[in-house]
């Protein structure tokens, strides 16, 4: 099988997920070529053909131009599978390509099973086995599902692509997240609040436990979106990735974006009323309990 792997870069920097597409191709036994709109100064390390459009000419992500470039490369390579990361880049571009090729797309692949690819459903409580009907399949890979066996190596054979710049969507610029305040990356203990805390007042219970353990409090996305906690407290793929000695998830169901930001913590405790919540997949200890009663009980013991 031939696979075309769509690598990613932002502001000229190659993004790590690009190597996950290589790991997936190896697992599928596919012969791989790569596509990248990026910089000559930061190329993916692998032995194979790399189709490169120079980001200095192409500019930052522009869906129509990336689609045009990809269609050109697909025409030359005729791959059976085109592989993206399930990222803000991949989930935006992949369906455009699938539609243009009249190909089926399988989103957020985590593995394979029974002749199909495995994807999560219902907040990871279920998995679907999905297969494409036609000869070409577009897939996006869940972040972290396919890990490279070792450090990257190799030197690609670069084929340069000619860039055009017509687009209906105009890129204005980037905005960075506000930094400052707390650095969760340095905390040895993080106690995080999820939607299950119910109301903003209960954040104080989480904060008190964090303090009693000499750590910091964090939050899941819905808690930050609701304005109950600052963005610099957010743990997950759109916030911070943390690896403390102890992570206590309070009322966090464990959406994949949250798990991506904390699953490498040394020891994980989850407190949840739903024992089937996906957080149980990564938790060393799951306490089925009401937070409002449990957190004060634990904090009191630490104080006493």
């Amino acid at each position: 099988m031939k696979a075309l792997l769509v690598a990613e870069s932002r502001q000229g920097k190659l993004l790590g997920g690009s190597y996950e597409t290589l790991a997936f191709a190896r697992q599928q036994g596919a012969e791989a070529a790569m596509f990248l709109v990026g910089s000559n100064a930061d190329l993916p390390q692998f032995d194979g053909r790399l189709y490169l459009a120079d980001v200095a000419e192409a500019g930052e992500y522009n869906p129509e131009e990336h689609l045009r470039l990809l269609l050109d490369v697909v025409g030359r390579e005729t791959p059976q599978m085109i592989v993206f990361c399930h990222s803000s880049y991949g989930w935006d571009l992949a369906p455009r390509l699938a539609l243009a090729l009249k190909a089926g797309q399988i989103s957020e692949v985590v593995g394979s099973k029974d002749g199909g690819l495995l994807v999560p459903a219902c907040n990871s409580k279920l998995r679907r086995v999905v297969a494409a009907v036609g000869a070409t399949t577009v897939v996006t890979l869940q972040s972290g599902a396919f890990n490279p066996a070792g450090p990257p190596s190799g030197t690609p054979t670069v084929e340069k692509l000619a860039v055009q710049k017509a687009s209906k969507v105009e890129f204005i610029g980037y905005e960075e997240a506000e930094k400052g305040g707390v650095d969760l990356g340095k905390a040895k203990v993080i106690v995080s609040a999820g939607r299950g805390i119910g109301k903003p007042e209960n954040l104080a219970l989480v904060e008190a436990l964090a303090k009693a353990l000499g750590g910091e409090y964090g939050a899941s996305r819905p808690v930050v979106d609701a304005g109950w906690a600052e963005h610099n407290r957010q743990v997950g793929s759109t916030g911070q990735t943390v690896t403390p000695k102890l992570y206590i998830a309070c009322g966090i169901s464990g959406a994949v974006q949250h798990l991506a930001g904390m699953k490498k913590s040394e020891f994980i405790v989850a407190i949840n009323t739903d024992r089937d919540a996906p957080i149980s997949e990564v938790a060393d200890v799951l306490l089925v309990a009401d937070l409002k009663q449990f957190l004060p009980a634990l904090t009191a013991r630490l104080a006493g």
Partner: protein
Amino acid sequence: MKILVCVKQVPDMESRFKLNAAGSWYSEQDLAWRMNEYDEFAVEQALQLREQLGDGEVVVLSIGPDRVKEAMKKALAMGADRGVHIQDDASFDKDPLQIASMIAAYAADQGFDLIFTGMQSQDRGSAQVGVLLAGLLGLPAVTTIVAFAYADGAVTVRRELEGGQKAVVKLTTPALLTCQLGLNTPRYPTLPNIMKAKKKEILALTVADLLKAAAVTKTVATVFPEKKGGGLVLEGDVGDLADKLLAILKEKTTVFK
């Protein structure tokens, strides 16, 4: 300004899911249903835009069996003007291209200036339908928006990227936008608006009239994930639980050393 919002009805994600008899999807028995969370932000953004402009129409569309009208009624109670229901008892069995093509078949000659969808559904989560719909209609699309502004036919949005970074992009209507959580604060329907919504029109359309596309993917089976974790599950009196947890933390971690 004519605005279309596509909404999906999904089960409450805290449900205990069981599989249907064919093993192809979840069983619909004993589930509580609600509007897909991402779509609530889509509805709210459409309403805010109509309010900003002082006129316009917000049409809410949903595909599925009769129960999906409840999700549409919520959108109507939030303030949408009318509904379009594509009646389909087997919508769960259609792939994203088929869903998008049915919406496109309806929307093609309706002259919508803006289409809002959720960035994905909570149950299937393909994140494809919005982008495919835009492609079928020949509209520019921006996905995963977390901020929206409109002035004189120009739309400026912030796309959410990874690690807290956002991209600011600009485009002109007609266009399609897929909405991320946190885009705005969806309003709660008030009682008078819930009463008013009961009188709003819901146009019924049939699948046969709209579905022309064949599926390009198929579900082989739906299964439960293999349990990886040998994690310990504890329940009982909170005082006992706190004592047990402290003992475990002292043994297995270095936080008290």
